[in-house]
């Protein structure tokens, strides 16, 4: 089994790396006989016809999640990370070329400020194009949100880790028991912001992504005054229940925010994974 899996991994690396799947196919290298089933798109009846959507049901929630990923790519930082609190209103309509546009009114909270943090009200239009492999388009407005308002904590964090001898390296955040050390919290949040670029790009009406765990973080040599971090993240997609692994290289500074420079989807053999710590 292990040999078989290693062989498949090798072959998948040697081949032109497959386009990162916009769907949630099971790991490419772990296909048994027969191809993996395509993701289970909801049947036409599942998608509510144009008009108002129930805010607590999945179509509205998935669209809001996409808007949330966008929000985090733009405004997330080591000490700021947004989470969906509640969808207040939602509607959807069919648009040109088989696309679908959602209009949303929702609230978010900042995880870094704890559960007592104030909720921010946002509105967004999320457009899922008709073609299967295109990313959604998001227009987003949130109240009281400065463009890049980096906090004192962000600056202190930056100063600490931009030092030339800094070489952070860690794994399994959180660990199997949900523990995240104080020191790792900002890296955890940064990973999530960086992962949001991928989650946004890979989202469709049939996905609902979340970051399940940071498998590893390895600090790279700083470049142009940017913190450079290589992450391996595990994403969880709710409808398919798949765990999808991505390796990515991200930069961050208080001025420039998070940028993702490279992403690479990684096959994850179910029977060949490392033991949890």
């Amino acid at each position: 089994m292990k040999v078989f899996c290693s062989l498949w991994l090798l072959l998948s690396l040697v081949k032109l790396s497959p386009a990162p799947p916009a769907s949630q196919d099971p790991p490419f290298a772990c296909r048994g006989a027969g191809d993996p089933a395509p993701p289970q798109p909801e049947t036409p009846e599942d998608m509510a016809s144009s008009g108002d959507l129930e805010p607590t049901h999945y179509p509205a929630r998935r669209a809001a999640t996409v808007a949330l990923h966008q929000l985090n790519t733009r405004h997330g930082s080591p000490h700021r990370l947004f989470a969906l609190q509640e969808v207040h209103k939602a509607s959807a309509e069919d648009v040109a070329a088989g696309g679908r546009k959602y209009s949303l009114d929702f609230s978010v909270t900042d995880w870094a400020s704890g559960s007592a943090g104030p909720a921010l009200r946002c509105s967004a239009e999320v457009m899922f194009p008709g073609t299967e492999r295109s990313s959604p388009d998001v227009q987003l407005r949130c109240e009281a949100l400065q463009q890049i308002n980096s906090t004192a904590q962000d600056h202190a964090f930056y100063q600490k880790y931009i030092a030339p001898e800094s070489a952070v390296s860690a794994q399994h955040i959180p660990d199997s028991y949900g523990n995240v050390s104080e020191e790792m919290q900002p890296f955890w949040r940064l990973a999530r912001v960086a992962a949001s670029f991928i989650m946004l790009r890979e989202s469709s009406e049939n996905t609902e992504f979340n970051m399940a765990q940071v498998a590893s973080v390895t600090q790279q040599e700083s470049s142009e005054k940017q913190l450079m971090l290589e992450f391996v993240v595990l994403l969880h997609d709710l409808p398919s229940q798949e765990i999808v692994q991505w390796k990515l290289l991200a930069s961050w500074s208080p001025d420039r925010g998070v940028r993702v420079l490279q992403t690479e989807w990684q096959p994850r053999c179910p029977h060949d994974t490392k033991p949890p710590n």
Partner: protein
Amino acid sequence: MILARKFYSSKMKGLLVLTALFVAVFGKKTFEGDQVLRITAKNEAQIFLLKELSEQEHLGLDFWREPVHESLPVDVYVPFHSLQAVRVFLRYNQIQYNVMIMDVQDLLDDEEREMVKYRTIPRSTDDFVYTAYHDLNSIYSFMDMLVAENSNLVSKIVIGQSYENRPLNVLKFSTGANRPGIWFDTGIHSREWVTQASGIWFAKKIVTDYGRDPVLTDILNNYDIFLEIIANPDGFVYTHSNDRMWRKTRKPNPGSSCVGVDPNRNWEIGFGGPGASSNPCSQTYHGPSVHSEPEVKAIVDFVKSHGKLKAFLSIHSYSQMLLYPYGYTRTSAKDQVELHELARKAVSELQSLHNTAYTYGSVITTIYQADGITVDWTYEQGIKYSYTFELRDTGRYGFLLPADQIIPTAEETWLALMAIMEHTKNNPY
């Protein structure tokens, strides 16, 4: 160099005088009051001084980072009896430092507590650590202890065996014969660790509250409660040994290198529909045929042979939802109105404790289409109050929920379970 020597000798004299005042109290195997200091020397002379300090054996210092160069921090473990002397020495020589570890014994105590949590074998269910995640053996031992301590109320039934031949244990809480029953299961998806942990807590809660809480006592005087804490033991062991994210059973699939079937797509209701996968490598693989998984078959057989279950609550995580049938079709369940209202009530009870927000509705509208699921099947068997729970959280930690949330999660969920059980009791059918 000469200047340095002069500097050295006068400073060191001062130190020797001071240390003479503090006689070491050796032989105590405690680390109370001991500290670890991080020293920052600013020049070569200070490094020189620190090197000399390190040679004062009677101080009992332990340099975790030796003085080497002024650009590198010097970490030193200082036993309590030498603290005053060392501090004075550093201040006198204007050597900067800060306290890295305030009290080594405190740190050791914390560590000890953590280790004890995971390694001590509890002697009773009162000893058991509910605030930590446990492995299979510990949980199975817990079950046996609970039965032994409450043999008039609790018994253990083995309803079958997993693929890897582990017993499928169900705790039966009963105060009389031939009663209708209420069923809970936790851990059918093995990575959802807060569910098994909550199941343990529910079991203890039931024995604690029987005879004390009038509502629960009344329920148990009329109904049996069946609780399967680890509905997927093979998967659970695998999450500890190999892959924390494992969801399915561990039965191999012929012709595929991928293992396991989703036990919540394996039921005979809408089996094989689009809300499940036909690919063995998929997390929602429905399996080769209905009830092909022994873990599922065991429950099927139990439900059918019991014949009088009146509520069936299958507990998962995460998403914070309370869901009722159906998952396989948009057609509303016959009892949809009542199920929806009861869900609303249960969620309201849940939220009253820690303000945890839940959404509720049918599976197919609220979370996703899912075919061949447990509660669709149990509902079709005539068990009206069939619900699926998705416990904390909504994605911040997801499956990796910190252990300090186990009890708050279990406590709030219990209020919802009680609401459903009470309604079941008050609305016999």
